[in-house]
């Protein structure tokens, strides 16, 4: 979510490379976030390659804002 907040949209491979997590792990995370309505996932053909792209939704952005606000109240920052 932190990654998707900072970009407009990103490819699945980019998320895997940046988080250094396993593909299956990232895939499960994305499914959960999609089911919660926090992100949208779609497939697109770019330069002859089928790619999985994701983007954060307004609901996801709000949830992230609430989460960071909650963290701020717990942590002595």
């Amino acid at each position, binding site marked *: 979510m932190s*990654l998707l907040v900072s*970009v*407009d949209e990103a490819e699945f491979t980019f998320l895997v490379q940046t*988080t250094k997590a396993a593909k299956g792990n990232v895939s499960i995370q994305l499914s959960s976030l999609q089911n919660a309505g926090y992100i949208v996932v779609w497939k697109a053909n770019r*330069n002859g390659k089928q790619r999985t792209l994701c983007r954060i939704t307004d609901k996801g952005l709000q949830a992230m804002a609430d989460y960071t606000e909650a963290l701020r109240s717990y942590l002595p920052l």
Partner: protein
Amino acid sequence: MNAQHSLDIMTEMVSAAQANHRRDSFFYLLWGWIVAFAGIAEFTMRSWNPSIPAELVWLVAIPAGSIGSIIGGIRQERNQPYVRTSLDRSVTHLLMGFVGLLTLAIAVGITVNWNAAYAVFIAAYSCLTVSMGGILRFRPLVVGGICAFPLSIVALLITFPVTSLVLSAAIVISYVIPGHVLRRRELR
């Protein structure tokens, strides 16, 4: 993922977005050299024999640059995973504005005169490089754009075929030199 990891990713994202555009030296050099050579060729042809339709140089240069850009863009995208940041969005909108100004330059050339059109073209190029340099925090582009801008006024004060040489000089200052600096940084 803890707070520190999130912060690391955010920092990495900012660097990645900037590095993404710092790999763009290919496009600066491609367009810079094509326009510079086309300007010199136009000057040479007009000086040598004014009856030659020297403007045809642009009918070769612009499609050549466009094809080169498309091929370069596809290659670059194939080598790295796709990600679109707000920085990319800013650059896209800036380039759209630049294309609009190029259209205006051509319209000025047809309706007023080509000296004025080249002046608009140099001014548009300069503004583009200053803005791109500002967005990407790359000083050579900003300096190149600022140094090239006065040449748009010079273009209004002189006549053809010297205007073509002024255009070439402006492109070398605003695009080719910063492009080579960028290239050197990429190779480090």
